[in-house]
């Protein structure tokens, strides 16, 4: 091969490889995006069937009951609620009245079968998706930056709360 043809082969091969790789990445990316829906959206039948998605809100007080390793509970955004079942061990911070995010499928019986319940690691921390769901149900504009801040301010010690949560006072 002449040096010139060789260089051409090299460039074409490189471009072809890059193209195939990019196509595969984008394809994998698209099929693994997980969308988020609030209980109200699910009640309005906006959520897809046969596809994984996430729901968020509060664990309704008094709704948790266990049968061996299966757990049933309701996730609410204060307007509507969705029944959820999960098989396995829930994260340490899962509690009634606290924020929760679950990933799974909505089955034809109208129950959300969670494959994963997400754990967050601060007792006062509210997952942003859950905060978003509550906010939307109240009719406010979804504004994740603010919900993030609200969710994160620590209030466990009154003396600390005043000075530490400079973010929440700025809202």
């Amino acid at each position: 091969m002449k040096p010139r043809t060789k260089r051409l082969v090299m460039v074409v091969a490189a471009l072809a490889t890059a193209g195939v790789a990019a196509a595969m990445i984008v394809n994998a990316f698209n099929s693994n995006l997980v969308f988020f829906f609030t209980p109200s959206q699910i009640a309005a039948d906006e959520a897809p069937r046969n596809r994984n998605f996430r729901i968020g809100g509060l664990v309704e007080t008094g709704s948790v009951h266990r049968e061996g390793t299966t757990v049933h509970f309701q996730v609410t955004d204060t307007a509507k609620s969705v029944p959820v079942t999960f098989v396995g061990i829930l994260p340490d911070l899962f509690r009634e009245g606290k924020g929760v995010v679950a990933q799974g499928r909505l089955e034809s019986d109208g129950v959300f079968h969670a494959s994963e319940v997400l754990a967050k690691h601060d007792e006062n921390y509210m997952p942003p998706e859950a905060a978003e769901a509550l906010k939307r149900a109240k009719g406010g504009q979804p504004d994740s930056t603010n919900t993030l801040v609200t969710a994160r301010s620590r209030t466990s010690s009154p003396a600390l709360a005043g000075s530490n949560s400079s973010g929440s006072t700025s809202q």
Partner: protein
Amino acid sequence: MIPEIGNFALMVAAAVALILGTLPIVGAARGNVRWMALARPAARVMFLLVVIAASCLVSSFLHDDFSVLYVATNSTHALPFFYKLAAFWGGHEGSMLLWLLILSFWMFAVSVFSQHLPREMIARILGVMGLIALGFLLFILLTSDPFDRLLPAVADGNDLNPLLQDPGMVAHPPMLYMGYVGFSVAFSFAIAALLGGNLDATWARWSRPWTTVAWTFLTIGICLGSAWAYYTLGWGGWWFWDPVENASFMPWLAGTALMHSLAVTEKRSGFKVWTVLLAIFAFSLSLLGTFLVRSGVLTSVHAFASDPRRGVFILLFLGIVIGGSLALYAWRAPKVGLGERFELVSRETMLLVNNVLFLTAAAAVLLGTLYPLVMVALGWGQISVGPPYFNVVFPMLMTPALFLMGIGPLARWRKADLPEIAQRLKWAAAVAVVVAVATPLIQGRWSFLVAGAILVATWIAASTFVNLWSRLRPTEGGKLGAKFAALPRGYLGMLVAHLGVAAFITGVTLVKGYEVEKDVQMDVGDTVSVGPYTAKFVGTSEGTGPNYLYLRGQFEMLRGDKLVRTMFPEKRKFVSKDEPMTDAAIAPGIAGDLYVSLGEPVSQTAWVVRVYYKPFVDWIWGGCLLMAAGGALALSDRRYRLAQRRSIETEAVGASVSA
């Protein structure tokens, strides 16, 4: 008083950083020797000042000074001594101070170990590092002062996040930051070379050990973080493609590419422009990692910070550093000459392919990490990118790179001969195929994925040994041991690191393919089988730890009828917090771990229990440590010690030429 001294030290350090970031660089451009000579002493003074500030914070923690907000937020009287030390970096402000401390440590190290560098070069390198330090000092002083007072003081602090009260967490952040910030040295070398226009093989030889040492620390840091997640988070995973993990992984990918590219620049003076770009990428991704973790944009374990001003500051800083260095690159890089030519089939080509693949992988991770954030920021809705995306894309991109890992080190520079390589590697290929087929059959369940991954791992390991043997065997004379001892450490380091990759792949594959995970309800006396073992629930007991109450389960692990091990998983409740914590019991072993943790009580005596068998899981971290050991071995190469002497000579020659 002590916090004020710390604060004052930081202010003086900012002034010193300003001098360091300006005068030496200007001096280098104008040939002003006095200004250039400021670089070394200024860097050392800055290191001293930051050490003073850090000591003040440590002292506040050890004295339980709860009039300091940061101490009150992250410590208590009852916190054990080592965790009081670790609480230094348990929150945002302290982490930033740690970042700065490590940066100034690297500056100090550069000022000590660079006696052989031309004075323009050292002035520029330390100047650039001084500018970075100035940015971080301003960030700390303006938005995240760890010495802020809390008046009136509280009687007792808020305690360190219980998840961070763990030996692994004491070491993880410093190691990770040594790596992150270590790339600032390679970055500063690159910027200095762009400013001076003297990119050559000597430059690569200087910056190579600094890159290797940063990479080694980063590898250890990521490894510790992953191990911590495995034994602390309580569900037995070791990598979640969490944005925070990705934030440390992207600089690692870019840094790995950089190390390989530097090899070409040093040996063949090729890829120069590319190497400089990679150095910029590696440090930019480190900064981006800091931004992701520390600005509060992430919704994950590590995002303690929640102040929008901080986010804006870091974003601005990021923009200046990345934008500025890329602009400089665009302006100066074309002036840098090309290296020696090479053929299509050559070690250069293979390293280039490795580089492109690593960088593509970093880009794919970046896409999956940033896309959801951008969506939220633009108000386009809440989405997340699941681990399946990464689990599909990453192995796909890495497989060709891993295949080349077997061939590349045997290929010649400039022009390699494929049939010759094939001849040398035929036995390695045969061994790889046999092991790949045998492994799933021995494990008792056939899987093409397992076979494929084991094929790749064995291929790397076998070809590494072929490579080693080819150095030891030919030409008669000399004992094997003596020949082995004479091999360059840099070469051995590469072999060890590549073996680490093989071990890592083995661990990942076998644990993915053959782990047994059972979440079951167990009453006292019940048994459950996991893999080759049977777990028997004996009962529970209660007790108190230093700053928590615990409920401890007792499990007997049987193999056949023989008792192998008794395990004690705990549920802990920390006194100062409302949250419970699960402490899993893990019995590690070379062939696999047993993992037991308590879930929820379902009756007086019965519990939902998690019992796992994780075959070969420790090979994952063992592999990472081997990679790091390879880096450390390469650093001990004698040519770096010789280089010192040699470049003093060249400097003398260079000085007489320029005069």
